[in-house]
């Protein structure tokens, strides 16, 4: 009996050793429907030996910087926003990546040498059809017009995209937004426009909140991540309607943390950024792949979005659909890496007064 226990014990230990011959990786992303889509598209299908633990975070480089500075890196692959991808790469928090396999296949050039492509997503205004039985809001001007469309608006608690949208609502052309924003008067102008809805806003910070706010009638219109709106329409049958105007298009990348299990992390990232993987992700969430050939794969495979009782065409729900793109602002991560702190403090002052 004793011998059997001993054998089992050593057996377990040896299994543990065999198991750790290939390092496991911790994959960190934003949670919710988004992480679920990553899980199904390329984590579950990964078979190179590393087992993958998924964790959630709320963005920002704080935790990563702390891990790298302390020499105790527990995250290996992280899903980051573009301005963070720039800063993290410049400060040496991320490992450099061989980009040759995808660099010519990307819709926009990558923001730094440390990233592999993921998706485009967009800050998008939307409303519930039941809130407007008569005339319906059509563009961002209507979102900022509380006389024409009375009722509360849901906006997020940080400044990104709000400045851009306010300027477009004030008459700036989408393609000139960053030119205007680079002048002090431009920022003043944006805040003046934000002032016009200030008494009518409800703030949100978690991605699921705007959907709740609109569903419950707490607000009549809100900004949200387009994928969340799409998922609510497609999967839950909500009567939401997008306002495809002045959507602010943001990029999303994967990076490997320096000092983590870099080799395994880079291998996994190569798998997670293939054209097929990005296309597969769109089966579960309506975000736009950053690789041109992924869009080809989806186009051929439509109806692509997986739903019980029959799949649905996904391309019209994407923020990169041509008719949406024509009226969109493409967010400039370099501008935000430069000016984010200053504008955020000003935004904080604006909120509090």
């Amino acid at each position, binding site marked *: 009996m004793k011998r059997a226990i001993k054998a089992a014990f050593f057996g377990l230990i040896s299994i543990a050793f065999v198991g750790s011959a290939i390092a496991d990786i911790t994959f960190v992303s934003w949670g919710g429907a988004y992480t679920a889509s990553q899980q199904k598209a390329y984590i579950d299908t990964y078979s190179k030996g590393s087992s993958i633990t998924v964790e959630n975070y709320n963005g920002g480089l704080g935790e990563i910087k702390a891990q790298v500075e302390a020499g105790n890196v527990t995250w290996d692959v992280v899903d980051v926003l573009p301005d963070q991808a720039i800063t993290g790469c410049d400060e040496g928090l991320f490992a450099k990546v061989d980009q040759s396999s995808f660099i010519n296949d990307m819709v926009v050039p990558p923001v730094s040498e440390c990233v592999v492509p993921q998706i485009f997503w967009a800050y998008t205004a939307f409303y519930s059809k039941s809130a407007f039985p008569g005339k319906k809001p059509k563009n961002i001007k209507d979102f900022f017009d509380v006389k024409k469309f009375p009722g509360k608006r849901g906006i997020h608690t940080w400044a990104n995209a709000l400045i851009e949208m306010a300027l477009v609502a004030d008459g700036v052309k989408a393609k000139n937004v960053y030119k205007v924003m680079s002048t002090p008067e431009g920022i003043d102008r944006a805040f003046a426009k934000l002032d016009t809805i200030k008494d009518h806003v409800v703030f949100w910070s978690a991605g699921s909140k705007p959907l709740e706010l609109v569903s419950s009638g707490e607000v009549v219109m809100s900004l949200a991540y387009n994928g969340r709106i799409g998922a609510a329409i497609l999967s839950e049958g909500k009567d939401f309607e997008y306002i495809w105007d002045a959507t602010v298009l943001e990029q999303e990348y994967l990076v490997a943390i320096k000092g983590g299990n870099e080799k395994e992390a880079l291998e996994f990232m190569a798998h997670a950024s293939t054209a097929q993987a990005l296309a597969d992700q769109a089966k579960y969430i309506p975000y736009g792949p950053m690789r041109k050939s992924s869009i080809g794969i989806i186009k051929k495979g439509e109806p692509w979005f997986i739903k019980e009782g029959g799949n649905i065409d996904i391309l019209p729900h994407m923020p990169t659909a041509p008719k949406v793109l024509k009226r969109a602002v493409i967010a400039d991560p370099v501008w935000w890496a430069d000016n984010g702190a*200053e504008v955020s403090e000003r935004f904080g*002052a604006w909120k509090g007064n």
Partner: protein
Amino acid sequence: MSQVQTSTGPILTTDGIPLKVSLKKAERKNKIRAFLLVLPLLSFILITFLVPIGDMLSRSIDDRQINTVFPKTFEVYKKWDRQGLPSEEVYKTMFFEVKNSEGYDIGKASTRMNYSKSGWKSLLKKSKRKFKKIEEGPYKEKMISIDKKWGDPEYWKALGQMVDPTTMGYYLNAVDLKYDSNKNIVQQKENRRIYNKTWIKTFKVSILVTFFCLILGYPISYLLATLPLKYSNLLMICVLLPFWTSLLVRTVAWMVMLQQKGVLNNLLVMSNVLADENRMQLMYNQTAVVIVMTQILLPFMVLPLFSVMKTISPTYMRAALNLGASPLHAFYKVYMPNSIPGVSAGCLLVFIIAIGYYITPELVGGKDGQMVGNWIAYHLKTTLNWGLCASLGAILLAMMTVLYWAYNKIVGIENIKLG
């Protein structure tokens, strides 16, 4: 049997060693043993408490992130009179220090420089790339032709506040002040003045929360301490149950209760107290923060109050009443002074927790309920301005120390009682 000590020499033990020495020896052993027993705790506190606080304090004044990257530039920079644009020499030194920089130092430095003037970050990045192609001067002209920001005196002036390896700049920043290019202290630009207001708001919310906790907690604790055991146990569970429930769950429950289409507003509208269009805005503002934090922190008030009230003998009150005091007078003269140690413990505890609160203001604070903790989190995560975080944290720490000191002077810390 009485023995009178007549000898003036030291008292000896049976083996002839002076008693004092022998005692000391025995005691030393005990002391070492006691110290060894405490050692793990002591080192734990040292490592997890004192070291991080020391690190925080040093970060709040450390400005080497940039000084080590551009040492020569700063040397020639110091000679500049801060009028117009600096000389060719400054440009040239800067040019070579950027061009020859290696690794990630320049990235870190540019993050630091960006705090004092937005735009440094992309300027340095772009310059680093383009400087490679430039072989000879005039550097001033060529640098300005690469990016006209190099010709903007504001960028150069912003460097003035970073010339020393240590800085009070982060502390100034934390109270809406800043250095100008000559290191004179000036006010922050008006639309960036945000921290003073936040400090006041943080204090206001913490004081209100402490006050409401006391008002609500005192009668509950009194009931708990005086009711017969079978009722008080039940009541105790009612106090403790929320305490055991996740903070997030309780916060979200409050959202459901208080939002405009929430339970409370609906009830008021249904009972015709409020018109449908006049629903109260109780969520996503400072009111919400005070309400929710009061509920969350209430047990921290009730528990110390209860444990102190439990020790107040009911005979005191009976005696006072017996001697002819009115109930109110007896309470005021006898019961309340006896409960003061609990009140002070509870208030101090609630206030200390409240002043650094983060998650509740983040969730229900909305437009005007953000506290200092939220700004610390923002800079910690997003701008990576840890110097500013550290100085905000250090100011919080200093405030608590002052408060503790004042409390000790006025009430006396020995009067505090948790049970």
